[in-house]
């Protein structure tokens, strides 16, 4: 199970701005350790953000995204007090889901 994410969601009218900070090594598979052996790739492949039953963002990621990635986006139709749920799955099958209330 992955480490907790830091989530923030704030409503301005019916537009909700979501900010997500994920803890992940995001190894590219291209790097070598000091002994010269390749470090196996380990990165987040899918990110899904839902608001109630509705998927408001779905992303497919590759190894080019930095370690501990930050993601920020806006969507229309959210309300204060609603719940935002964020899930990621990485290439080793590890996954993490966290939730936050829209402020």
């Amino acid at each position, binding site marked *: 199970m992955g*480490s*907790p*994410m*830091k989530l923030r969601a704030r409503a301005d009218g019916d537009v909700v701005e979501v*900010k997500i*900070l994920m*803890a992940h*090594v995001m190894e*590219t598979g291209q*790097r070598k350790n000091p002994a010269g052996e390749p470090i196996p790739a380990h990165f987040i492949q899918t990110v899904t953000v839902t608001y109630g039953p509705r998927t408001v963002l779905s992303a497919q990621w590759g190894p*080019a*995204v*930095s*370690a*501990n990635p*930050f*993601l*920020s986006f806006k969507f229309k139709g959210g309300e204060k007090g609603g719940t935002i749920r964020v899930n990621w799955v990485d290439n080793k099958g590890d996954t993490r889901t966290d939730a936050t209330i829209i402020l």
Partner: protein
Amino acid sequence: MQPSFFDGLRPRIAAACAGALLAAVALTATGDDNHAIDEIAKYREMLKDGNPAELMEMRGEELWTTPRGPRAASLEQCDLGLGPGVLPGAYAHLPRWFEDTSKVQDAESRLVTCMTVLQGLSVEEATRNWTKPNSDIEALVTFVATKSQGAAIDAPALHPREAEFAAVGAELFFRRAGPLDFSCATCHSQDQRRIRLQDLPNFLDPKSAQSSMITWPAYRVSQSAVWTMERRLIDCIRQMRAPDADYLSDAVIALEVYLQKQAAGGVMQAPGIKR
């Protein structure tokens, strides 16, 4: 990027970072240094919202409040100088003299004292993997420093032992040694200097010293880790071609006392975010 004396040599940089560096290069090419600095400031502004140090801060808070070690105690009674468990502003007043240990201690050495005394951990356990990303000490220092956001650096070194450390720190700052004759002053005693394109604070100038010290500990994008002040200083010492300075050693703490004194009055913004 060209390797330099001072590079961490970890060839991974966030995509956004590479973009900002390219922008900096392009602007420097026009000969306009100020624009390059503005662009880097904009990049930092952009990242501030998503500073991965916040992840470390969350982990640090958990480590602070969770009972651990043979004594199954949390760190909530840890005295960082302002009384047991008092966190707001504590980092900004460190390093300082502590009666109970008869030592001048910084945030890191004091946290280790709390982990050994309150929780019964060994020093080895308390400092495990301190040079690697995600160590416990890194998380705890980040958490503690964050609680000083908005507090002014105020470590005037008035106690005789603190004053002695400040004087020793000043000598260490200018102390040249090794095959390249380096001291801290080689790179950090003039205004607006750079190694390659990396800006260097001038610690003889209070404003410049403040702008540096208020942002440590800091998340280093090139290292994917928060670096504490000790980690930063020990790496500078390594780059000066010296042997590894001991973690929590008096030489490192004396330098910190001197630098905090130079930076007096700076308002803490840590954790910062850096290359």
